[in-house]
């Protein structure tokens, strides 16, 4: 019956969570397939580095499935999972002893270093330039922008993930957008 359900129409997260709670590894795989990209993006928004974010994503899913029995469904599974991802990435950040949260080592950042911005633009691809600008934002603004634009989360959901109120998530998002406008001005 399970296999048939998966073939016909995608089961909801709620149904998959119920099955996963009962030990259904197939349901866990579907949940991982469905949410690993958002988890990775959340981790990379905090950690900056792809490798660290991939490790944190793995740890996030392991911890989430271990704790699935305690998930009551007060929030959406995705929100709950991304909150775990955020915690895991911040824990990873502490472990590697980074004082500067936004340190993207593999992407140059736009800075107020006095260099001619137009010169920097020519040296970077558009995507790198945008990512570097996002990396300049404080963590909560960065997460709010990425979660809103990449994953379409509501401000209430973002608030749960960044451990703030819905209003604070909205303010963080708008401040982030305003700052990005400045950073990415032609």
């Amino acid at each position, binding site marked *: 019956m399970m296999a048939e359900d998966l073939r016909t129409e995608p089961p909801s997260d709620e149904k998959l969570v119920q099955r996963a709670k009962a030990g259904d*590894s197939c349901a*866990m*795989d579907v949940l*991982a*397939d469905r949410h*690993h*990209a958002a988890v*990775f*993006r959340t981790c*990379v928004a905090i950690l900056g580095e*792809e490798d660290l974010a*991939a490790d944190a*994503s*793995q740890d996030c*899913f*392991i911890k989430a*499935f*271990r704790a699935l029995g305690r998930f009551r469904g007060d929030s959406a599974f995705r929100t709950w999972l991304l909150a775990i991802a955020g915690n895991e990435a911040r824990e990873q950040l502490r472990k590697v002893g980074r004082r500067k949260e936004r340190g993207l080592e593999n992407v140059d950042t736009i800075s107020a270093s006095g260099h001619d911005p137009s010169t920097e633009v020519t040296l970077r691809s*558009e*995507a*790198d*330039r*945008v*990512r570097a600008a*996002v990396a300049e934002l404080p963590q909560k603004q960065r997460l709010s*922008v990425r979660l*809103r*634009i*990449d994953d*379409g989360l509501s401000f209430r959901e973002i608030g749960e993930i960044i451990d703030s109120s819905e209003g604070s998530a909205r303010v963080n998002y*708008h401040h982030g*957008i305003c700052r*990005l*406008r400045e950073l*990415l001005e032609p």
Partner: protein
Amino acid sequence: MTDQTCANAKDFLPALVREELTGEERALVEAHVSSCLSCTDELELIRRLSGAVQKMPAGLASEIKEAVARDRTQKRRTIGWQLLAAATIVLALGTSLIWQRTQTLPETSQLAQESFVMVWADGDALVADTPMLEDLSEEELAVLLEELGG
């Protein structure tokens, strides 16, 4: 979106880029954006941000699923070892209890083997509350004989 303001139109811009709006919502937002420079700028920025999503490492989903499966297998093994350890402790405690009980048995049998006389009250008088003849005075003896004779 009947009250078309710049602020609430901006709330819909990410969903517009993600193509998640209904036809009516989309028409309303696009109508506003076309007449609002600030929203036009923001929509352009969101499109650029959306196009600069961090690339996923190849095979990440598989790695995650494998890591989860390994963790579950390890957990089952751990539970197995914990059950084995618990069973060993119960067995050890049970054995210890039985051994202690068997150690107390010789004392009981030794007690049982002691002379009945040693245990039993020494003298009928103490047992049946009956006075012994030799303990009676002559007068008491005469009364007793008279009672018996009578």
